[in-house]
């Protein structure tokens, strides 16, 4: 019992961790980490908190931030028509949609390709600062923000699919053809990296920090 005490005294009393328990992240089984290092039911490695959560989250996040620049500056698609080549970045593609009368789709693509990735990057920074420095919101709100980040993440892949389909269909040799650009690669990488960042982040750390602060004040 001493080992369990040492292991768990740093956690707030309401948490499962303070009793050396955790919910298996794969199957949900309540597992004692004092007795097991793998879930006895499904065999997943069990930890009180995701290992290196904040470090990994920052690493993925910074990589995503760096790639966000080429993702928006490089063309994701090049259209060659009768010898003339037109390059489109993500933003110019949205403007093109808007100008050709499809304002509704322009809004959808704008949300999926601009608002979601940028919002995700910002939200993760807010969450990380809330754990490491001071909370930038009440815990239930931050929890909701985290859930939202996990929910919307994959919708940014929209533009990558559009480019893939256009490049496959529009191949009329000299008359007109569409080529994927390096921007699509950078953009796809941003989507994957922000998803990995969100998966690395352990939302339980927000509640740990909150309660530790509340105890310090009491």
């Amino acid at each position, binding site marked *: 019992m001493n080992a369990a005490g040492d292991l768990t005294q740093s*956690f707030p009393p*309401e*948490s*499962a*961790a303070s*009793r050396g*328990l*955790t*919910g298996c*992240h*794969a*199957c*949900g089984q*309540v597992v*004692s980490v*004092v007795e097991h290092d793998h879930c*006895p*039911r*499904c*065999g997943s490695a069990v930890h009180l908190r995701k290992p290196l959560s904040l470090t990994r989250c920052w690493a993925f996040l910074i990589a995503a931030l760096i790639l966000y620049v080429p993702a928006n500056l490089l063309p994701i698609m090049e259209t060659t028509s009768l010898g003339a080549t037109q390059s489109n970045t993500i933003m110019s593609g949205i403007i093109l*949609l808007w100008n050709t009368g*499809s304002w509704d*789709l322009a809004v*959808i*693509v704008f949300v*999926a390709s601009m608002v979601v990735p940028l919002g995700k990057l910002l939200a993760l920074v807010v969450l990380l600062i809330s754990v490491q420095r001071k909370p930038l919101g009440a*815990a*239930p709100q931050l*929890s909701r923000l*985290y*859930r939202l980040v996990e929910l919307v993440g*994959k*919708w940014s*892949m*929209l533009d*990558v*699919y*559009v*480019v*893939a*389909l*256009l*490049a*496959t*269909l*529009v*191949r*009329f040799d000299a*008359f*007109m053809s569409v*080529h*994927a650009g390096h921007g*699509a*690669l950078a953009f*796809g990488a941003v989507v*994957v990296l922000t998803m990995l960042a969100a998966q690395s982040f352990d*939302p*339980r750390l*927000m*509640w740990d920090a909150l309660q530790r602060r509340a105890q310090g004040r009491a």
Partner: protein
Amino acid sequence: MSQDSNANMIVCHECDLLQHADAVPRRGSLRCARCDAPLLRWASDKLDVPVALAVTAAVSFLIANIFPVMTLEFQALRMDATMVAAVWQLHAQGETLVGVLVLVTSVLAPAALIAGLLWLLLPLRLGFRAPGFAPLFRALMAISSWVMVEVLMLGVVVALVKLGHMASASAGIGLWAFGATMLLLTLLSSSLQGSVIWAYHEAVMRGRDGQADVDGKVVEVTS
């Protein structure tokens, strides 16, 4: 602390609150008392519906990948796009990594999820345990967040509109099959609960140890 004392407990995966797992209301769900995270959804304790949905999803996903999702006609020329062709075209244009991303998220991950679920559920329903049960279960949990069939659907709509201005673009059989797969996967995830899978698993293992359930059928499993 023995495993049994934790039997009726549940831990919130988002705020780590240890709480009693109340019975999930029929067609409802259970949320965390502190942070409101969804903890458990109601699901039937039978596997019939999930198995049927998984079989149907497998058929529709096969169709989705054989037939073109989109067709473009321009004067006498006609271009078809299946997802595999799109991946190949990206590779041919030197964007192999983008192709890999499309391949994984729209073809491999959904295929692995559907095939893996069938591998787990069909034998369980028939009263035995598939080889590699636990590792496959863990792998499927990890794969599921990379299945992006619904995003692809929206992508096809955007592509149809973009091409509509210059040529006659039309949706193909593959697109409808992708739509059906998307719907089936959504129904599957709402009709299937991990705890039910493990309850079946436990019953099957008990049956194999000769303590119960000798007629090979697994019935009356409480989750």
